[in-house]
């Protein structure tokens, strides 16, 4: 079995930057990512796609090629298409690649598994034709496939970015149904100072909005009571905007109200998490280098808390410095000298976050949906079911499994975990921290028998 100094899960900006830094400092690094090519979410498939449609996706996308190029270092092994499904102590990583199970050992692990879109349960969100806005962007990025008549629903900078990219591609969205209100903007204004330090992001946001408006895309704000209508697939979106009931016919709906850390891997290792009230999600506890409460396991990038692509890159590099220090490849002085510069850049990058978080809060009715709305897509459990469990005395997400099958489907709670926590916390008058989250157990993704059969299994250590 191969052994690496460092195994990195995720080849997005955080994972790629960490790999490059660690390799440069003499560590032997393996990067695993389930996607067929490096890039992560923001730079998905950049090497192949930049020449095809870099103009539509913009310079911030094509920049990713500098990071993918750094993976070519001889001390880095990039295992593309490797789905990691278990990380065990000290550290043995099990994954599936090309339909076969395999394992590798590493002294340190960096989880750089990125973000997921915040679940946005609203009536009709399970209908075919309803996708996340990120999915719409993935279709464009990876496949050059564009929705002709999509309606974008929700809030946040990513929603505008995707709309702007659709405009540039020549297929503007049919409408934008936005959930943020004027009062959100006013309360966000108190964070304006920080936002001005991150003025580039603000300027970029205004430019995107201008391009969307110029393309004649109707924008409905302060939207509530949003529902997707249709029997076998999406046919229309209905909502109330500023006192008026509206209905827009469409065959594609892209939902988005922010991204949240993908904590599946960290949770499976039993790493402690806390509730981040500003970002309304759980984040893993980490020290200033990104090390979790499990020694040797680091977490960087959006899987540690939403900061965006640049912040992910700096955080990945910081973790690599500490790992190299622990492996005695770097002196304390050199580590601290390099880290100081990175921390300054990271702080600058994070300056605009509080403003963005306050200006584009999640859509309240999707945080605590109506009783009839499905929240667990896999097992078709409704919000009312969860409230019913709470009445029967269910105290936490892991107990819901005794009442029904919420979170027990193949997605393992990726798209219902936060909803279940929110509903139980609300019903019981508790904080999300008190309520907790699903316990996640490996395998992180379903593994088939034939994948296991193809696996080379070596007994860990003969002597214990």
């Amino acid at each position: 079995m191969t052994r690496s100094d460092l195994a990195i899960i995720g080849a997005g900006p955080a994972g790629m930057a960490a790999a490059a830094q660690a390799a440069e400092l003499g560590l032997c690094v393996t990067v695993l990512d389930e996607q067929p090519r490096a890039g992560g979410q923001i730079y998905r498939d950049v090497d192949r796609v930049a020449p095809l449609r870099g103009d539509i996706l913009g310079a911030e996308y094509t920049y990713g090629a500098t990071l993918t190029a750094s993976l070519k270092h001889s001390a880095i092994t990039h295992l593309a298409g490797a789905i990691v499904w278990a990380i065990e102590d000290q550290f043995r990583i099990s994954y599936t690649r090309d339909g076969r199970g395999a394992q590798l050992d590493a002294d340190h692990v960096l989880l750089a598994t990125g973000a997921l879109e915040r679940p946005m349960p609203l009536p009709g969100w399970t209908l075919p034709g309803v996708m996340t806005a990120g999915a719409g962007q993935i279709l464009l990025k990876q496949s050059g496939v564009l929705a002709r008549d999509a309606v974008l629903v929700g809030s946040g900078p990513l929603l505008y970015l995707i709309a702007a990219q659709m405009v540039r591609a020549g297929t503007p969205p049919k409408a934008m149904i936005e959930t943020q209100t004027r009062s959100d903007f006013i309360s966000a204004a108190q964070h304006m100072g920080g936002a001005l330090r991150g003025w580039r992001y603000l300027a970029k946001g205004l430019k995107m909005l201008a391009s969307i408006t110029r393309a004649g895309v109707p924008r409905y704000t302060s939207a509530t009571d949003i529902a997707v209508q249709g029997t076998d697939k999406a046919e229309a979106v209905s909502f109330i905007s500023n006192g008026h009931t509206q209905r827009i016919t469409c065959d594609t709906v892209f939902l988005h109200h922010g991204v949240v850390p993908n904590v599946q891997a960290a949770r499976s290792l039993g790493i402690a998490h806390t509730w981040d009230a500003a970002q309304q999600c759980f984040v893993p506890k980490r020290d200033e280098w990104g090390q979790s409460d499990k020694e040797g396991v680091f977490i960087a990038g959006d899987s540690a808390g939403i900061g965006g692509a640049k912040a992910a890159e700096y955080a990945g590099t910081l973790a690599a410095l500490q790992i190299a220090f622990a492996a005695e490849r770097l002196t304390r002085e050199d580590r601290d000298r390099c880290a100081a510069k990175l921390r300054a850049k990271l702080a600058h990058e994070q300056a605009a976050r509080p403003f963005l978080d306050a200006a584009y809060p999640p859509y309240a009715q999707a945080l605590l949906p109506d009783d009839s709305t499905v929240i667990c897509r896999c097992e078709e459990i409704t919000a009312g079911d969860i409230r019913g469990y709470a009445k029967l005395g269910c105290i936490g997400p892991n107990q819901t499994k005794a009442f029904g099958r919420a979170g027990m489907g193949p997605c393992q709670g990726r798209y219902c975990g936060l909803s279940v926590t929110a509903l139980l916390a609300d019903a019981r008058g508790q904080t999300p921290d008190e309520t907790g989250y699903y316990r996640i157990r490996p395998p992180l993704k379903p593994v088939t028998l034939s994948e296991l059969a193809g696996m080379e299994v070596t007994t860990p250590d003969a002597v214990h």
Partner: protein
Amino acid sequence: MKTVSPFLELESGPRVKVILDDVALSLPQGANLAAALLAAGVPVFRDTPISGAPRGPFCMMGACFDCLIEIEGTTRQACMIEVTDGLEITRIHHDEALA
């Protein structure tokens, strides 16, 4: 089953033949399978074991499992596979009424 596609393809590369439930489709070689099926006008990929409700791709990043289809007897995520020549795909139906 096949309707006018709500999706537009920007590029036109070489295509290969793929069988979906006994129907031949011509899809771009090497493309993401879920994207290629959507672009070919296939919105529904399966129905659910519980209520028989139709489902199609939702996240396109391997997280939601709504895009499950069957290939050579194995259930797989269409958004995590590339189109290859001669691929035989079965849509999973639990509710025969919808089949």
